[in-house]
């Protein structure tokens, strides 16, 4: 076992390395490889990475055992930038249960999405380009997951943003896709500003306290070769304690809030969520990969990774909780009103991410269950949400429309897709024994046991809403009679798309059966008394949601419209997504562009440059004035010459005349 572990940990750099290789090969040699080959090559390389990740996880748990908090191992590292003493940043592979879990999820879902895309994207003109970007994204995401220090995380965080930018804007001739990709990049970029500032703060104060702490720890940090930005340093108990003392913990809270801003941007928390629904302009498998399973959970991952630090600042955790709870409710309510299948899923993702954040927020050293619950939900959600997106892709592929009201009756036309979609819907709705039930249950339990009853209430409400809108989607798409020609003539997708969905469907069922706490936990000791009311309440809420949606949407006449009409203004408000987009639009275009950028441009041309030109004009006017003296006639010149010469001579004579 030890040998296996040694060998695999030495090879761990291959996990992100293989997709990178794929990107380089496919990206540079796509003309040369041809479409088929480059697609398969990319898929195989990611598949290899997935195999490696699973094997690493297997040996890790085999070697270190399960149950406790697994050790953190930096399996491989390479110096990258040395800013100054103690701020030397290296690129490395950090292996611990959390990163292993996400590695497996990322590579696994990515492989399946690659496979699916082979079918879905067949015939697209940018086939190989698509796979190159997909590989690039997988590489970046893996780099983020394995980051042993904050800066590497930031680096790959940005790369993830860039590669998702390319993938969302994949159909680059479509203006809406271009706008969406731009929006996604800029919004997350804005959030990353917070991340960056947080890093600066942590680096500065971490640097200041390094020497003292190191002497306290009798040189342990130095001998371990730790640098300030390493997670191992930042999350070590002494550092956290010192941070808590520093200015009454204000610095820590500010830094964490800033970091959370970055996390909220990537994980699309309110009010930085606006990019995610628009990002559905990308190809559907991309949405499955990026906006369900991987990139959007990066924010959750960041908070989880820095959880020991967050544990040091209750107010930061409170913020995480509030934002998470609000987003989950907010997004769930919007999801009930949307008509675009992918947008519904996008808002559902938002809601589920809010759930995960909420769970992290309720966690604390005393009640750390939320940590496990959050990562557990991250794990299960990745599978069923990816499956939902892939299923949606399959449907869209068949119907050529995104609008659910164009669909209907697909249960018979597309039996496999229907079955898988149903499984995923049940999973997300939280019906036992599907995966979602277990993780949701744990989150609710964590909220209740940590004493946040109102959060528990929101959680319950969201669980009901989730079941409602997901089944609304399900009823309208699959069960109701077909409402368009395309839906009538729809047929099942090719096997290349079915197989990955099948795998995900199995995982969506079984993923919940894992006793997750044994594998991934925060390391804080705790006792939990299982409250049997929680699962009952949760599944009860789900059943009510399902039932209500059946009542509203399954009948001959859709009763929902009547409800919507009754709700009136409220419905419109929700339908228009609470006008958040419009507010942003107003702020950016009307305020920033009009009142900052344009005036700056004007100011530069008119005032600053004007002053320069004014001085130039003054000089020029002087020149023009002097120019009249330049008659070009030798006689004028000689006149001046004589005058001047005489003046000089005469003054010399006056000066030196010996009186």
């Amino acid at each position, binding site marked *: 076992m030890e040998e296996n572990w040694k060998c695999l940990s030495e090879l761990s750099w291959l996990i992100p390395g293989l997709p990178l290789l794929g990107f380089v090969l496919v990206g540079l040699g796509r003309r040369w490889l041809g479409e088929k080959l480059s697609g398969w090559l990319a898929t195989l390389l990611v598949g290899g990475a997935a195999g490696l990740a699973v094997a690493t996880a297997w040996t890790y748990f085999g070697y270190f055992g399960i149950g406790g908090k697994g050790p953190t191992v930096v399996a491989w590292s390479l110096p990258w930038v040395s800013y100054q003493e103690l701020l030397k940043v290296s690129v490395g592979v950090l292996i611990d249960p959390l990163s292993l879990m996400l590695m497996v999820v990322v590579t696994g879902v990515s492989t399946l999405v690659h496979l699916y895309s082979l079918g879905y994207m067949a015939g697209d003109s940018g086939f190989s380009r698509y796979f190159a970007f997909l590989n690039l994204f997988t590489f970046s995401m893996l780099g983020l997951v394995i980051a042993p220090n904050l800066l590497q995380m930031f680096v790959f965080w940005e790369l993830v943003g860039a590669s998702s930018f390319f993938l969302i804007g994949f159909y680059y001739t479509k203006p809406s896709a271009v706008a969406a990709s731009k929006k996604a990049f800029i919004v997350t970029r804005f959030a990353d500003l917070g991340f960056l500032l947080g890093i600066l703060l942590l680096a500065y104060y971490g640097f200041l306290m390094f020497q003292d702490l190191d002497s306290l720890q009798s040189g342990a940090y130095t001998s371990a070769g730790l640098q300030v930005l390493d997670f191992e340093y930042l999350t070590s108990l002494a550092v956290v304690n010192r941070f808590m003392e520093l200015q009454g913990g204000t610095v820590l809270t500010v830094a964490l809030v800033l970091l959370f801003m970055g996390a909220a941007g990537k994980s699309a928390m309110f009010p930085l969520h606006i990019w995610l629904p628009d990002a559905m302009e990308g190809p559907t498998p991309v949405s499955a990969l990026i906006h369900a399973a991987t990139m959007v959970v990066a924010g959750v991952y960041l908070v989880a990774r820095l959880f020991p630090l967050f544990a040091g600042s209750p107010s930061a955790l409170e913020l995480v909780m509030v934002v998470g709870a609000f987003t989950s409710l907010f997004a769930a309510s919007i999801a009930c009103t949307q008509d675009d299948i992918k947008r519904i899923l996008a808002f559902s993702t938002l809601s589920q991410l809010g759930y995960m954040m909420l769970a992290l927020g309720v966690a604390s050293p005393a009640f750390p269950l939320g940590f496990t619950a959050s990562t557990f939900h991250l794990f299960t959600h990745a599978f069923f949400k990816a499956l939902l997106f892939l299923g949606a892709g399959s449907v869209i592929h068949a119907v050529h429309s995104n609008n659910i009201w164009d669909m209907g009756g697909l249960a018979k036309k597309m039996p496999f897709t229907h079955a898988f979609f149903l499984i995923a819907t049940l999973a997300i709705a939280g019906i036992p024994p599907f995966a979602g039930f277990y993780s949701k249950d744990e989150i609710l339990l964590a909220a209740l046991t940590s004493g946040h009853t109102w959060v528990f209430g929101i959680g319950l409400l969201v669980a009901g809403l989730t079941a409602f809108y997901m089944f609304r989607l399900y009823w309208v798409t699959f069960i109701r009679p077909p409402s368009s020609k395309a839906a009538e003539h729809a047929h099942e997708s090719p096997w290349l798309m079915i197989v990955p969905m099948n795998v995900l469907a199995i995982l969506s069922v079984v993923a919940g059966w894992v006793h997750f706490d044994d594998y991934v936990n925060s390391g804080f000791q705790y006792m939990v008394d299982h409250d049997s009311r929680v699962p009952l309440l949760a599944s009860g809420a789900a059943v009510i949601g399902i039932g209500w949606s059946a009542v509203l949407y399954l009948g001959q006449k859709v009763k929902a419209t009547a409800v919507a009409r009754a709700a009136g203004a409220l419905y419109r408000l929700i339908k228009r997504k609470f006008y958040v987009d419009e507010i942003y639009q107003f702020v950016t275009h009307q305020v920033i562009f009009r009142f900052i950028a344009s005036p700056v441009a004007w100011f530069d041309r008119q005032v600053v440059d004007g002053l320069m030109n004014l001085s130039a004009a003054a000089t020029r006017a002087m020149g023009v004035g002097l120019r009249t003296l330049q*008659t*070009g*006639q*030798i006689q004028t010149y000689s006149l001046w010459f*004589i005058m001047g010469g005489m003046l000089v001579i005469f003054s010399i004579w006056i000066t030196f005349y010996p009186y």
Partner: protein
Amino acid sequence: MIDWLAAHAPTLKHWLILSSALFAIGLYGVLARKNAISVLMSIEIMLNSAVFNLIVFNRYIAPKGADGQVFALFVIAVAAAEVVVGLAIFVTLFNRRKTLDVTQVAAMKD
């Protein structure tokens, strides 16, 4: 009469005033005249007065030496060269512009 004349023999000052008067007249010509040849002739007067000065100084300051005369010779030679070139330019100028009016020739202005 003769004594009076002898008593009022020109001194260095007189010679210099005479030469500067000639120079001033030449200068007036240079500044006032428009025809290039006239300007050149005025310049000749000025040069001539300068040579004149050299001889005067030779005579009154260092009558033993001949340096002033040598200088004067040089100036005459240079003046001759200058006249040659100047006149050649005038001929060419006249051939091109059909005028020797220096006020019409102002190529240096721009």
